[in-house]
């Protein structure tokens, strides 16, 4: 009995460590973006309050550049409006009466963001009650791809950042019809890759890579710019290194894009 107690005393701490570690690993393995949303929503009132204070100070110093960007946006929208008015006869002839616009845009503010991890997410201040749904595309205010919505609570949504090992989307070099896959390999948050592009695509440094149509992203949204490329292991394709169009570290205001026919497209392509 004495020996048993001695033995238990000796192994009690290692056993406790193993038990605690197993519990932590089990919890981590079962973690999901929903858990992150739930935990972050719960802690957001405390951390968010302090973050908001720092954010407000930052906002003040960013006012000048944001005003400049807004002026540019207004100018661009006015130009587009003028073009649309001029072409209204032509547009109406192509649109079926009562047809819903394919994409619905809304805006949100980034509350919490990270680019220092290998699976980075950001939290935005819009959720289910604002009409946000999983798989909505998230773009910068300039229309550059930043990520997509993973899950939502009532007031907040968790978005997968482009700087996430699990992020993937379709991309192509603008002006060419070679489609590939955009992803991130865990290094610098501004460096992503476009793979599965045929060798004869002959990209040029500085070429723009844009999104292809999918159930998440509208087509032709800027993803990044070609920096370099190298032959892939299969020797028939090239892996292109891109610099992201958006700086994810400074993401503040974002556009959310709902593709109205996303469900239909997802169902159609899910088996392929």
């Amino acid at each position, binding site marked *: 009995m004495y020996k048993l107690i001695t033995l238990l005393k000796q192994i009690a701490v290692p056993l406790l460590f193993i038990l605690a570690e197993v519990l932590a690993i089990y919890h*981590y393995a079962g973690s999901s973006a929903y858990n992150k949303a739930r935990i972050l929503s719960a802690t957001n009132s405390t951390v968010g309050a302090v973050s908001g204070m720092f954010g407000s100070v930052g906002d003040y110093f960013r006012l000048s550049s944001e005003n400049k960007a807004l002026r540019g946006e207004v100018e661009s929208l006015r130009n587009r409006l003028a073009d649309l008015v001029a072409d209204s006869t032509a547009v109406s002839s192509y649109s079926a009466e009562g047809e819903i616009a394919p994409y619905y845009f809304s805006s949100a503010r980034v509350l919490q963001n990270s680019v220092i991890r290998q699976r980075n997410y950001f939290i935005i201040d819009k959720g289910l009650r604002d009409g946000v749904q999983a798989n909505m595309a998230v773009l910068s205010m300039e229309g550059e791809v930043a990520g997509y919505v993973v899950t939502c609570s009532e007031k907040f949504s968790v978005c997968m950042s482009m700087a996430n090992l699990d992020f993937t989307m379709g991309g192509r070099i603008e002006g060419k019809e070679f489609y590939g896959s955009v992803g991130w390999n865990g290094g610098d948050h501004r460096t992503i890759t476009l793979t599965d592009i045929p060798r004869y695509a002959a990209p040029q440094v500085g070429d723009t890579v844009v999104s292809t149509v999918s159930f998440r992203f509208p087509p032709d949204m800027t993803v990044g710019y070609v920096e370099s490329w190298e032959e892939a292991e299969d020797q028939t394709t090239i892996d292109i290194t891109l610099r992201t169009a958006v700086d994810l570290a400074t993401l503040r205001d974002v556009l959310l894009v709902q593709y109205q026919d996303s469900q239909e497209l997802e169902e159609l392509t899910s088996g392929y």
Partner: protein
Amino acid sequence: MFVVAVLLQVLLLDALFIVPSGVPMLYLAFLVLQPFDRNTLAMLGLGALLGVTMDLLTGMDGLYTIAALWLAFVRRGVVILSLGKDALRESYFPSPRALGGGRFWLYVLSALLVHNVVFFIFEALTFDHFHITLSRIVVSTLFSAPFIWAAAKLFPSFNKK
């Protein structure tokens, strides 16, 4: 110390992205700078407290707890390997003044490395692009050490023998 280290980590260091491809881990000062004679059971309790707090504040669902518990459990071994068995009898808080500059850096870098190997491998959950995980381990270890050194300097009560 606990509150200051955690808040500085979450609100400042994680938000500023000051180290490309790495994370300076100031919050680990709370574990690394515990007295050497603190027993493993107490260290596990402190490790769990630190890990769970960081997980709750960052939404990482256990990653910080896994690595903090690991460091808490093996710290005794790290001290023995980096400073020798005699160091375990010392009741002071580790600091450059108490240990001597070279021994302090050796101990801090060893402890950070042991922690970061587990932290970043569990973070990646893949051995694809392992060179990137490896670089994150090395970069984070090197950039965290000066923050631990600063914490040991800035908290005078920790330097008393």
